[in-house]
């Protein structure tokens, strides 16, 4: 807005927000701004100015939250979509090798529900791990040779080897892990946390999702948008998908021919006319509109700054591996995740597809590990060196594990596979409030059932929330007449892994 017009109107945002001259008290306005996550703005910023935090994507959480002092302020979830084989990667069972090719003893499998792709009971032959395991670091954690980089950071990790879930198919199991329900329609963890805790960032969404898949992967586990949906929570709590393209956020770029200066001038005019309207109508919704449009302008600057990697030193880029500069790869996304948490994004959900080795253990599993192992480890080291790991919770894991018996023909090594397995699988956690260098829980000697300290999906969810200072039983939302929560009526915090 030009100074003359501004003078003519005599309005700055300060007067807009503080004046009750338009029949608009501060309480109603702040209520509306909060509802839409457009509050927490320093009120001395004039319309049209670009500096200073005017609005943000979810500044204010609920009153009374966090429930207690959080150990972690932010989360990076390295979600491994498809069901990584715990048997191949982390859950070392010498007996599997010893029994290789023999039928799976019936007492292990008694009456278990499996996917319809699994073999008949008589054809379930035990399959030994395809690569050797070694104990790593001071902690002596078992990590397969498939994961050489993760092996190097074993002392920073907490392995939970007794994970269990209720679902045997991908979409229901992923939905269950991320939203607590197998069918779509519930808010995901990131949405719950954005809703409860708000966010510290000024110009970026508080909950961001990035997806990737290894080149040449034969399976197509799709990334459904309900994996980051807000369910019955307001849509502003849903994860914002950053795309692996030149335009990371939909509609971020100005149209051809509209420069940033032109856009600024357009916005100044829009806002000035909106203020005239505000004077006539007195509806505080108009103030939220003004704030909303200002933030869109700021986001157009903050996102490109976020995605511009030119300020990253060479040694950092190299650490994340050869794909780091390729948008849409897991390596690139890992580096982006670090940049996002540095800028105050609270929940970063990376999803990497391709872990569904029904017939590709000896082929595609190697690709999966190659593309994810190095960047995952690099992220942990990078966060650690920057002092961010201590209050950033990093989680690595998928929706279930894989059967310790073979899917396919034992004689045809090139097509060896394993089916979905919900009764035991491994995840690792690191950073914010989790004991480093420990292994928690255990599966039986054939990695079939979690026998020692089983950790159900709801327990994992409760633990994540606990680390962020949230009592999972007390973060609820009323929908369809009842209080819903992430963990339904279940979930116990796994206190043994808390530091």
């Amino acid at each position, binding site marked *: 807005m030009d100074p003359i*017009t501004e003078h003519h109107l005599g309005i700055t945002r300060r007067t807009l927000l503080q004046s009750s001259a338009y*029949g608009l*008290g501060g*309480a*109603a306005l702040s*209520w509306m701004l*909060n509802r839409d996550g457009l509050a927490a703005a320093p009120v001395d910023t004039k319309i049209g100015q670009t500096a200073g935090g005017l609005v943000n*994507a979810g500044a204010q959480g609920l009153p009374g939250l966090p429930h207690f002092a959080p150990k972690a302020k932010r989360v990076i979830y390295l979600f491994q979509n498809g069901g990584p084989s715990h048997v191949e990667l982390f859950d070392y069972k010498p007996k599997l090798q010893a029994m290789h090719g023999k039928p799976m003893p019936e007492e292990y499998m008694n009456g278990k529900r499996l*996917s*319809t*792709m*699994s073999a008949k009971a008589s054809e379930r032959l035990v399959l030994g791990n395809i690569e050797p395991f070694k104990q790593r670091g001071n902690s002596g954690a078992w990590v397969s040779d498939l994961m050489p980089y993760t092996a190097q950071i074993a002392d920073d990790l907490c392995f939970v080897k007794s994970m269990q879930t209720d679902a*045997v198919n*991908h979409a229901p199991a992923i939905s269950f892990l991320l939203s607590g329900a197998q069918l*779509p*329609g519930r808010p995901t963890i990131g949405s719950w946390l954005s809703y409860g805790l708000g966010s510290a960032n000024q110009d970026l969404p508080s909950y961001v999702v990035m997806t990737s*898949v290894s080149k040449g992967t034969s399976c*197509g586990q*799709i*990334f*459904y*948008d*309900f994996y980051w949906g807000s369910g019955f*929570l307001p849509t502003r709590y849903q994860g914002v998908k950053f*795309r692996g*393209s030149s335009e990371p*956020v*939909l*509609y971020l770029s*100005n*149209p*051809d*021919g*509209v*420069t940033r200066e*032109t856009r600024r*001038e*357009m*916005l*100044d*005019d*829009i806002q*000035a*006319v*909106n203020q*005239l*309207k505000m004077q006539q*109508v*007195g509806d*505080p*919704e108009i103030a939220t*509109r*003004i704030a909303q*449009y200002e933030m*869109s302008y700021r*986001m157009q600057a903050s996102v490109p700054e976020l995605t511009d990697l030119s300020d990253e030193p060479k040694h950092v880029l190299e650490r994340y591996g050869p794909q780091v500069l390729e948008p849409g790869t897991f390596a690139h996304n890992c580096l982006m995740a670090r940049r996002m948490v540095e800028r105050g994004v609270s929940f970063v959900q990376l999803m990497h597809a391709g872990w569904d080795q029904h017939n590709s253990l000896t082929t595609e599993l190697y690709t999966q590990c190659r593309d994810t192992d190095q960047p995952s480890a690099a992220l942990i080291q990078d966060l650690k060196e920057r002092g961010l790991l201590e209050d950033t919770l990093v989680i690595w894991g998928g929706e279930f594990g894989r059967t310790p018996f073979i899917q396919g023909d034992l004689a045809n090594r090139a097509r060896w596979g394993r089916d979905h397995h919900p009764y035991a699988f491994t995840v690792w956690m690191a950073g914010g409030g989790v004991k480093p260098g420990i292994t928690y829980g255990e599966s039986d000697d054939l990695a079939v059932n979690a026998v020692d300290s089983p950790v159900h999906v709801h327990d994992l969810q409760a633990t994540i929330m606990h680390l962020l200072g949230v009592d999972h039983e007390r973060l*609820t939302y*009323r929908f369809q*007449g*009842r209080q819903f929560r992430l963990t339904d009526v279940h979930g116990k915090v796994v206190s043994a892994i808390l530091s």
Partner: protein
Amino acid sequence: MRYSPNTRLRCLSLSFATVVLGLASASGGTVDFSKEILPILSENCFHCHGPDAKGRKGDLRLDTRAGALLKNKEGAAAIVPGNPGASTLIERICTTDKDDLMPPVKSNRKLSPKERDLLKVWIEQGATWGTHWAFVPLQKPPISESHSGNPIDIFVRERLAKEGLTPQPQAPRRTLLRRLTLDLTGLPPTAEEVANFDADTASDAIERTVDRLLASPRFGERMAWDWLDAARYADSNGYQGDNERTMWPWRDWVVNAFNRNLPYDQFTTWQIAGDLLPKASQEQVLATGFLRNHAINGEGGRIAEENRVDYAMDMAETTGTVWLGLTFLCCRCHDHKYDPLTQSDYYRFYGFFNQTPVNGGGGDPHTAPNLWLPQGDEKDRLEKTKDEIKKAEQAVGSAWKASVDKRVEWIEAGPEVDAKDGDAGKKATELAAALRVEEAKWNAAQRKVVQEAWATRDESFKKVYDVLEEKRKHFRGIESALTRVMVMGDMPKPRDTFVLNRGLYNEPGEKVLPGVPESLAGTTQGLPGNRLGLAKWLSAPENPLMARVTVNRFWQMLFGIGLVKTPEDFGVQAEMPVQKDVLDWLAAEFCANGWNVKALLKTIVTSETYLQSSHVPPGMAERDPENRLLARGPRFRMPAWMIRDQALASSGLMSGKIGGKPVRPYQPSGVWEEATFGNKKYVQDTGESLYRRSLYTFWRRIVGPTMFFDSGNRTNCSVKPLRTNTPLHALSTLNDTTFVEAGRVLAQYALQTAKPNPEDRLRSVYQRVLARPPSLDEVRLWSAGLERHLARFSADPAEAERLLAVGESQRDGALSVPEHAAYTAVCVSILNLDEALTKE
């Protein structure tokens, strides 16, 4: 507008809360059980002492009077009417002993001192019980004779008078015209409509305008969107594979049904049970596509029965939400915690939908039962081919007879069965088997085998036989390309329905018969025990829910928030509406008036309450931020689809074509590809399809259209608007090709038709977008903006060219490039004004 629990808390500290939710008894009257007591008991006690027998603690139930008055072994009762001192309920809610306190500290529930007092007073007054307001049979609330006019206004004014408030005056006429046109057609008024309305000074101008809008074919399109959200309509299955389906004829049926004002009871019956109606018409069967709109999970390894159960549950729960406003979901696993719905009720209700031949396997987007719907000349082609087949069959018949002698020989000799392996071997065996049967007793397959074999022997027979085969193949070809809509159909032999323990498909318990919830059933005598019976029960005048729930949704569409603000829940946990008399009067009227949707809407939109100015008087934004008292007219941001339609319509780009296959308008590139690993490619349409109304946009369930940022997710039934404002929304209306192109075309129209000065040109744009001329201040502001844009674009005409190249439509090359670009920037800005995005 919706608010979350935290904002509710904040809100409670405002005077508004105590006024609106104010407690009658605070002033000393009789406590109203349904309004004041039931909500307290439900929220704080029912979770452990409610209808769910299995979850009940301490053998105490407080959801029935008998339960609450029941004496325990010690002779004490939770409630002793008239004697709060002797009521253990009062003792337990007032104790200072943390271990004894109710609700328990651990439950995160807490009674306020006011609530405790209210319970005491209520018990003192005799602990009179009642029924939850929404379950009470419909009755028109009395209107005192001294009042006249629209009953809505009478009730609203009564309430406002109690609050010491007065309604707002009628909104300016132009505002009203835009409000009505957007509400009833989803489009802005045209310049011509504005001019006609201006000229119409008759006292019934508004009423006639409403009639005109209700008669417009755009009405059905407008009404359909919300119904599609509720029906979880999409053009693909969802889940892996996400195969494309062709349910769009059902969508067109919805538009048509609203347009011809199909009475809502029939609208209901056809969609739930059209196939079961006597001599069901094609259209009635088509309507049942509503139920089949659920997602289909074709993921490999998925257990078919588990899918099948999911689908039937989805139908049951969607029906429960849409027609009853009841939340069945929790009864999958246990009796409802608050409402009188048992787990058996759930499975009996589910039993209605458990009867289709669907087995749950695979991801066929045309899983039978299907309705085959020929389009265009397909019907004629099918008929023609059928005739040709008939002729060919006759020819084959004659040739078959003519060759009977030759064949006897062949049969007696026994055809050689030399090929033993593979298909040939199989065929030979089949032939041998068929020949052992008398010709008169052949079935179709046997006849085919023999005739095929004979055709290899007899040249003249082969000629006619080949013709027949070719015609049949041709017929199948046409048929397989036909549009198929998944519809309902029950198996002849009913499938047994069981209570499923914990909702698990593989843990059947007690066997149940299809039926409606017992506590709400009323009289079901004479109703068939199938979906048709269900539909009749739903729309029976004795059922208080269907009318209330439906009226509430229409009200929500017009006012932005329902009279009951939880359209998905009318159960015990739902608030008693602030304007309950309005809801009950409208619901009773709707039911008595033959479920006439257009008449209902007309009653609402011609009320003074609706026609009020949406000006927010000083103090009212705080006192009543959600406008529950209705002391002003509705004002809220339009849904994204309507904002897009408005841009298309006001620019003149919009195609008026109604119905047909879904279209693929502008969308940022790579969105489908990224979500599906390149399996699904978004091929943008060209020409007219880019400018069809939003309703017709192809909806890929796993990655919906990017421009509809606030729609239902089309995976679950959604009946409540999701109206929040994020910066991402602003980016889409500022930067989406549709909006930029609309701005360019708007600008072009103004430059071509208005007098060549900013004021007249701006007036042209304003009229088309906002249905009003700009004020002097606005003209001054935009003119200054125009000059700046013009200076910039004149200095850099290449940028101007780039802006004018956005969108497919042709530009008038005679217009000055910098000037057209400058006006385009202004028009895009005007389309993004709060006023443009808002229905006011």
